[in-house]
């Protein structure tokens, strides 16, 4: 049985590990260190951890000032409060001048679960994607989260790492490539390509397995970097398979599905369908129940592929 781990724990562990080899790294949090798991960095490097209290806008601005002074700040809070409340600080204080600030923001998407719609960010990718100079990583498991943290430290400029809360199976390995901006084809196929990001990658692989039982070969493309977007890989997949299904734990507006649509528009005649949150807010519930209610399970992905291919569901 493969190891299971929460992405937020992997984020905190990776930060602690990175801190040991890069003394420019400082970590900032907004009174959520034990939720974002930056507490793991704090325990190892207390002199490089700065709590800003419940003041996300100030934290992001201060991170810019620290980056201007040669440090590499990783600022963390929940995805909603980071990309939402502090949006304009990220836009003007950080991205506008390409400040070397990283923000690993946890509790993204519906999988926050019980806390409900007020805490479930389903629009954060969209908000960050329209900001110039931004890099966006959406890791799919703990191994990829670790790679995203280390890769972020090597990039000169703002990087958003979208971190999910649930404990999930670690299905990629230490040797699985993680090249920023290069999507990973995790499964070859013939009939359709499922383009997925974050927690939906595993769901896509499960769906592809079921489809194989029905004689349909679905490829799975893991888009761990939403920006810069690997339009070349997506276009190649569309042309090769003729059918594309995108799936994300985010609104279908502005996120992965939009990026795929922008790539295919005018360039591909492939059939295309977007799975994700259909322009609505989240609500309280267990993550698995929410995924069912919002159409984000392997069964939904399988159904979307079958429909796209004109097969009986």
């Amino acid at each position, binding site marked *: 049985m493969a190891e299971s781990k929460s992405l937020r724990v992997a984020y905190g562990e990776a930060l602690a590990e990175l801190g040991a080899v890069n003394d420019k790294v*400082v970590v900032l949090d907004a009174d959520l260190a034990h939720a974002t798991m930056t507490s793991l960095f704090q325990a190892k490097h207390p002199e*490089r951890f*700065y709590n*800003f*209290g419940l*003041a996300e*806008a*100030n*934290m*992001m*601005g*201060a*991170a*810019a*000032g*620290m*980056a*201007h*002074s*040669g*440090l590499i*700040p990783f600022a963390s809070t929940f995805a909603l409060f980071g990309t939402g409340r502090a949006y*304009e*600080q990220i836009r*003007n*204080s950080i991205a*506008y*001048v*390409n400040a070397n600030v990283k923000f690993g923001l946890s509790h993204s998407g519906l999988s926050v679960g019980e806390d409900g719609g007020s805490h479930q960010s389903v629009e954060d990718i969209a908000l960050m994607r329209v900001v110039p100079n931004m890099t966006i990583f959406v890791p799919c498991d703990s191994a990829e989260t670790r790679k995203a943290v280390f890769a972020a430290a090597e990039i000169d400029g703002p990087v958003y790492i979208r971190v999910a809360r649930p404990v999930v199976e670690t299905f990629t390995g230490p040797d699985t490539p993680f090249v920023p901006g290069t999507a990973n084809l995790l499964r070859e196929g013939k009939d359709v390509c499922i383009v997925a990001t974050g927690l939906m990658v595993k769901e896509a692989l499960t769906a592809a397995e079921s489809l194989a039982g029905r004689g349909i070969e679905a490829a799975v493309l893991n888009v761990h970097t939403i920006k810069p977007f690997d339009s070349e890989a997506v276009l190649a997949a569309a042309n090769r398979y003729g059918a594309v299904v995108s799936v994300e734990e985010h609104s279908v507006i502005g996120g992965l599905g939009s990026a795929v649509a922008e790539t295919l528009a005018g360039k591909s005649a492939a059939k295309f369908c977007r799975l994700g949150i259909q322009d609505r807010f989240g609500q309280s519930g267990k993550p698995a129940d929410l995924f069912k209610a919002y159409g984000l399970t392997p069964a939904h992905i399988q159904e979307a592929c079958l429909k796209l291919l004109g097969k009986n569901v």
Partner: protein
Amino acid sequence: MSDTTLDGLAVQLRRDILEMLYRCQSGHPGGSLSVLEILMALYYKTMKTDPSNPGWEDRDRLVLSKGHGCPALYAILANKGFYPREDLWNLRQLGCHLQGHPDMAKTPGVDANTGSLGQGASIAVGMALAAKHKKASYRVFAVLGDGELQEGQIWEASMSAAHYKLDNLTFILDHNGLQIDGANDEVMGLGNVMDKFAAFGFECFDVAGHDRDAIAAALEASVSGKPKFVRCRTVKGKGVSFMEGNAGWHGRPMNAQEFQAAMKELGGKQNG
């Protein structure tokens, strides 16, 4: 520089500011004129900077949080030799490094991107915190506008400045009492700013905001274990009678008659 020389320079800088703004027919005269002596005290008396090495790691930093006052900063940086004075005449024009609001990536000597009010205070906190972190001795100054104090971020930043005991950080308030829609007290009253910053844990100083020596003395006053706040009582539009104390001159361009009248009033050498 002697005080007589600085008096003459103040006239020259005011002329530069007005000419920049007249040429581009946009920008903010009122707040650029009110903040001038604050920036002169910083750049000619207090701050360590090196025009030949703008990125000098141990320089003192200035964050013009009220970024719309940047014509005053630009005129001073040109005078200090960070770039040629001729650049001033292309303010706000396509391709010129002098943006409508400060851009550190484009303009030598500018230490932070500001203009969206409230944000500079936090950037300054981050810089001061980084100096403490690195055990560096440089100081960080943030110049705030009074209308800007209505931004909640100012108070978040202030709380963190006191929490981290940033005695290398000074917030300087250009308190001219006016903002775009009128008097501060009519738009959204600030209350007693001295009491507020004291309550937030700052060591507070109150000075005449066009008295360079008084400002510099407050900037030099020794403070330990807490950030410093210097309230500068200023006049919006200072130096041009028809602009003084008039909120209408926050961000309106001068016509030819107004420009000539203002330049005549200021006196000093002809520009060009």
